C-alpha cells in the first residue's frame, strides 16, 4: 500500500519521463553528521558522508510517493571529499527507467557541489519499485 505524503503524487512508472529534473536539495554538512557516518561504517577515515544522505532519492520523494523501494544497484564517483560546515547543493534527475522480469526499476542520478563550487561526487541508483517482490526471495 502506497504511503501518502502531503504535496506529492503517486508514482506512475509508465508516465515517468527520463530526464525529469527533481527539486534542488541543499543542506549543510555538519561535523556531527560526519562523525555519525564514520561510526556507522566503522571507518574513521571515511571521506564521503554524502553517501548516507541518499541525495538522489530524497529529491525524488519530494515529488513522488510509492510503495517503497529496494536499492538494486548503486554507483558512486568520488571527486572531492566534502568539508564539514560547508553548504552542499544537489541536482538530481531521473536518469533511466526499465522493466526486468516483470519488475519496474527507476534510475536516479545526482551531483553534489559545495558552496565554493567544488564538485564533490556523483551517485547513480537503481531502485526496484516492488520491494515485497525482493522480500519473498530474502526469507
Amino acid at each position: 500500500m502506497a504511503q501518502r505524503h502531503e504535496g506529492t503524487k503517486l508514482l506512475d512508472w509508465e508516465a515517468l519521463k527520463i530526464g525529469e529534473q527533481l527539486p534542488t536539495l541543499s543542506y549543510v554538512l555538519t561535523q556531527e553528521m560526519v562523525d555519525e557516518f564514520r561510526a556507522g561504517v566503522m571507518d574513521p577515515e571515511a571521506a564521503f558522508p554524502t553517501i548516507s544522505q541518499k541525495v538522489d532519492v530524497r529529491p525524488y520523494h519530494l515529488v513522488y510517493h510509492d510503495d517503497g523501494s529496494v536499492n538494486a544497484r548503486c554507483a558512486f564517483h568520488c571527486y572531492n571529499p566534502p568539508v564539514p560546515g560547508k553548504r552542499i547543493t544537489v541536482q538530481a534527475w531521473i536518469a533511466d527507467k526499465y522493466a526486468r522480469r516483470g519488475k519496474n526499476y527507476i534510475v536516479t542520478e545526482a551531483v553534489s557541489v559545495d558552496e565554493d563550487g567544488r564538485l564533490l561526487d556523483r551517485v547513480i541508483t537503481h531502485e526496484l519499485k516492488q520491494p515485497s517482490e525482493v522480500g519473498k526471495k530474502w526469507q
Partner: protein
Amino acid sequence: MAIARSYKVGEQIPSLTKNMTQDAINRFEKSGGATGPSQFTDLDTARNTLGTTSTVASGRMSLTFATELLRRYFGADVYNGRGMVDLRFLRPVRPGDSVTFSGKVTGVVKEANGCRVSVEVNASNQKGDVTAAGTGACVVPSGYLPAEE
C-alpha cells in the same frame, strides 16, 4: 615526489571485513538525517515493506565499504579524487552478519590523465553467499606510476 605504485591484472586486493550491528545501521541512517522508522531500523517496517523477518542494512553501507576497500588499495590521495565503484546488491546484509569485501585488478588502460585501473569487487557473508558484486576503478596519475622503459 609520490611513491611509485604499480598495478598488474590479476592482482588481489587486500580484503576488508565488516561486522554488522543494528547500532551501526542506525548510526548510518541517522547520519543521513533519517529520523522515522524504516526497513533499516525498524523490524515492523521491514516486515511490512519487504516481508522480511529482520531489518536489513542499506545497500549504501555496502557501497561505502567497497569505497573503503578501494581507498585503502589505491590510497586516499588518489582514490578520493579519481575513484568510483558500481555495485549490484544481490542479497540482504542483516545485523549480525560478517561481510567480507574483496577484489582483483582486471585492467590497466592508459588515459589522458593517467592510467585507469579497473577492478572487480565482491562481498560475501559468513555463509559464503555473495551479497554484492560489481566493479570499481581509479585513474592513477602517471606521476605515481613507474617510469616507462
